[in-house]
């Protein structure tokens, strides 16, 4: 068509094409060889490298959390076990939009603002990426089902069961067992990070805290195969965890319950100790709280209710309550008088109802307005005569009183496996100069002689001192744990913690018969005609010994809101009682305090009698079993 167009040459076209096609084939072979070289390089030369990468993808090392040891009472009743609890948690890295995911979960199950707030706090405290952070725990069956149905639209959301501590007896054991709770940052710094790599809970208080190392066990590891979404498909290998050891306590839940019932809802504490071992048979502080609330995290409302209650249920009165011991220390002061020789069994005095020091106009009054008449030491213990003890205290002086009271453990912490108890206060010259900047006055000694003034003691200390009395000076440190069970393997060695090594020196007196005299007086408190607690000793099938006490309220904490009726009640004296039974072969020593209970004889002694009866008469089996 075009004038200048050359004629087509089919032969040449074909030649050119054939040449180009062959050239193309040549290039194709080179390119195919190039591809194969590349593949060969990946598969043969770098095989090891990519095999490692591939294994890293699918194999994960996971911690196997050891099962926490169980806690039993002396008869094998379960006090703390582990129960499966379902909770929903979120893995932030797998969730495309965290806020939306939370909102979606909130539309499926009920979520409170507080749960979301706590979730965010936990999220910011996460230990490692890809860690599931719990949003809501203790899911009901229905909630689990609802979440499972919607699981496909909730990436990164996991419903998982974990073993969570459970306290079947709830309130009644709370102050002794304590509880576990979620580990916080501070605790994490303290523990071995490897051993706790999978652990979510740690003992926060009580036995759970003290025996944390024993109960926790040793972490195990397993290699698992997971898919790209982190789902575990199979276990490739494992090193099993070593479960925590079980602990058998000296506590008898039946006795504990008897003591709680005897307190009848009043505020106070009961501590019962087996004198022959120091084993704590009961440790009661009322009111109490449900430790199960604290395990997975207590909600704010419940916590403020507990914290702000006027009755301070979270306060462990048995270990931390520091009360003036009142007349309950008179047997020890009396023993000091006899042993030092400042008085003897014949020493008598007339009690007009008051006592006065020379050159001091102040009247030191007896609780009985017109006095006890002519009394000796025996009568003074039996009837709790203050005047006699004012005189005795004056004669003994502060240093000797301090020395004897100290030998019975007052003013110091003596328990083997309790870390939260308070020291109380055993005053002396040095203490007063240090704390108050004042010299010790003779009047201070008089107050100290009847357990008032500066002196403070915890119920645990009073029970311990009473056990030493019952043992006639023989010391056994009080202890909660009776037995820690052997671990599963031989190399599972755990350092069992103790607060103190050895035992305090036994109280040795010059004339051992003085024990009979003093303890006899305590027996007369219960069984004598004029015994202050004779009402509680009446019609008993066995003999017991005791001493009542009354402490003026200085208040462990006064109510902040003004409530006339409540305040009036809270200004009453604390009722105290210490004692042991049976008299001839003591099996139990008890200290009871009823806050604002009034007199020790009317409020505290009956509680002790019920505890004595239960232990001596109703529960003989454990004694025989041993």
């Amino acid at each position, binding site marked *: 068509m075009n004038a200048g167009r050359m004629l087509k040459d089919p032969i040449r076209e074909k030649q*050119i*094409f054939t040449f180009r096609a062959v050239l193309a084939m040549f290039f*194709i072979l080179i390119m195919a060889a190039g591809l194969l070289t*590349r*593949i060969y390089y*990946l598969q043969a030369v770098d095989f090891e490298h*990519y095999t490692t990468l591939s294994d890293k993808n699918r194999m994960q090392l996971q911690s196997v959390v050891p099962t926490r040891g169980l806690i039993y009472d002396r008869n094998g009743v379960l006090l703390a076990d582990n129960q499966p609890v379902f909770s929903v948690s979120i893995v932030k890295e797998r969730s495309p939009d965290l806020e939306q995911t939370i909102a979606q979960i909130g539309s499926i199950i009920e979520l409170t603002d507080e749960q979301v707030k706590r979730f965010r706090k936990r999220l910011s405290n996460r230990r490692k990426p890809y860690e599931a952070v719990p949003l809501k725990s203790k899911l009901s069956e229905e909630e689990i089902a609802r979440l499972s149905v919607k699981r496909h639209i909730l990436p990164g959301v996991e419903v998982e069961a974990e073993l969570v501590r459970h306290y079947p007896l709830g309130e009644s054991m709370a102050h002794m067992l304590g509880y576990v709770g979620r580990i916080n940052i501070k605790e994490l710094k303290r523990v071995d990070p490897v051993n706790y790599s999978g652990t979510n809970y740690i003992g926060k208080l009580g036995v759970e805290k003290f025996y944390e190392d024993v109960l926790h066990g040793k972490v195990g590891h397993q290699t698992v195969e997971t898919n790209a979404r982190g789902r575990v498909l199979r276990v490739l290998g494992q090193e099993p965890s070593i479960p925590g050891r079980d602990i058998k306590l000296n506590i008898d839940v039946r006795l504990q319950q008897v003591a709680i019932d005897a307190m009848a809802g009043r505020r106070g504490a009961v501590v019962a100790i087996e004198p022959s071992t120091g084993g704590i048979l009961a440790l009661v502080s009322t009111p109490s709280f449900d430790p199960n609330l604290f395990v997975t995290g207590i909600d704010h409302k419940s916590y403020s209710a507990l914290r702000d209650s006027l009755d301070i249920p979270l306060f462990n009165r048995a270990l931390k309550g520091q009360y003036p011991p009142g007349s309950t220390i008179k047997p020890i002061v009396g023993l000091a008088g006899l042993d030092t020789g400042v008085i003897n069994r014949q020493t008598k005095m007339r009690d007009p109802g008051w006592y006065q020091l020379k050159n001091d106009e102040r009247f030191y009054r007896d609780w009985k307005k017109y006095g006890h008449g002519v009394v000796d030491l025996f009568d003074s213990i039996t009837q709790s005569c203050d005047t006699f003890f004012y005189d005795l205290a004056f004669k003994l002086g502060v240093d000797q009183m301090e020395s004897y009271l100290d030998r019975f453990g007052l003013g110091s912490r003596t328990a083997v496996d309790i870390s939260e108890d308070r020291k109380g206060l055993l005053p002396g010259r040095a203490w007063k100069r240090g704390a108050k900047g004042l010299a010790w006055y003779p009047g201070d000694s008089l107050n100290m002689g009847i357990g008032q003034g500066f002196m403070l003691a915890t119920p645990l200390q009073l029970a311990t001192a009473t056990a030493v009395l019952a043992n006639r000076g023989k010391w056994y440190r009080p202890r909660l744990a009776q037995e820690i069970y052997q671990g599963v393997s031989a190399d599972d060695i755990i350092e069992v913690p103790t607060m103190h090594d050895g035992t305090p020196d036994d109280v040795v007196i010059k004339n051992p018969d003085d024990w009979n005299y003093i303890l006899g007086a305590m027996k007369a408190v219960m069984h004598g005609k004029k015994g202050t607690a004779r009402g509680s000793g009446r019609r008993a099938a066995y003999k017991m010994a005791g001493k009542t006490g009354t402490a003026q309220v200085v208040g462990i904490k006064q109510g902040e809101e003004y409530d006339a009726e409540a305040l009036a009640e809270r200004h009453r004296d604390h009722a105290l009682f210490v004692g042991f039974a049976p008299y001839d072969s003591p099996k139990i020593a008890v200290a009871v305090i009823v806050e604002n209970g009034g007199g020790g004889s009317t409020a505290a002694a009956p509680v002790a009698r019920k505890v004595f009866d239960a232990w001596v008469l109703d529960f003989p089996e454990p004694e025989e079993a041993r």
Partner: protein
Amino acid sequence: MAHQEFVRQLEGGAHHFQSRRSLLFKLHIDPVLLVLLLILSSVGLFVLYSGSGESVAHVQKQAMRFVLAFVVMIVFAQLDPSVYRRWSPWLFALGLIALAAVLVVGTGAKGAQRWLQLPGLPRFQPSEFMKLAVPMMAAWYLSERYLPPRFKHVLGVLVLIFMPVVLVIKQPDLGTSLLIAASGIFVLLLAGISGKLVAGFIAVVGAAVPVMWMFVMRDYQKQRVLTLFNPEQDPLGSGWNIIQSKTAIGSGGMTGKGWLDGTQSQLDFLPESHTDFIIAVLAEEFGFIGVALLVLLYVLIVARGLYIAIKAPNSYGRMLAGSLTLTFFVYVFVNIGMVSGLLPVVGVPLPLVSYGGTSIVTLMAAFGVLMSIHTHKKMLGK
């Protein structure tokens, strides 16, 4: 053109094959290509079963597509090459209009408009159609002219290629536009454009790249290009796919982990394991030996295609058959190259193995055209 004669010489002996061969010839089927394609598609289904996570549904659907695609191939094989030749400009024009329409009224997913839904017609991708129409158009244009082509005709072909390529890039579909461009350029190369012209062109492009980089492109564009060529910079984002596919291939070793036992593919670490990245599944489970056999299969198909092209009776048939064959290899090279980390990731499937309908049908239609060229030979062409 009504009268046609077959010049194919039957091999001596083996008379019992004669009837079957002549039957295939009457159907205009090339038996060598047919067998190779059947082997390839069977291998594809096997690997797909593993790559899709043992999904019978995927395999069934893919098998149905193969059946459809083979039917399309047979239909395309029946038409005389002269029909394709006569219709080339019109098909090309139709394709261009459809491509323009896609940009206006097209539908699609993931931010790309690729599909055209016309009333009374099944939904289709005009860009796939252009994979056939562009080489046809280029071959038609050049076969009408003196060969080897002069410079102005080369420019003419380049303009023809440029229009659909730009429209496809706009969709955006980088992979397909690349294949379309390649199919057109192959026609030019096979037509015999001078080596000087090719060298000059390469030199111009080579000179333009640094100039563009230094003076024209902005920082964010440069960053994009860098990521495209170095995905490891972003291991959790765009680099994830390529890292996982290299891991899958590398950990397969010489003999592989065994069918259905590839941890990368079976545990979902390998993304797109049944579509664009399926070669990684094969490499992981069958090792280097598996990959080498598959590449060999592809090379055999390409060799057969080029043989058909060389034997074609006229320039149009030669150039079209050659271009379609070479484009087929571009699929293979780009796909394996990108999955193994040699080339940037562009969406090109592994032909006849990757899951997905449109490309299978287009590819088999192209093989139908090849068979048509091979089996409709006139005495005149010889």
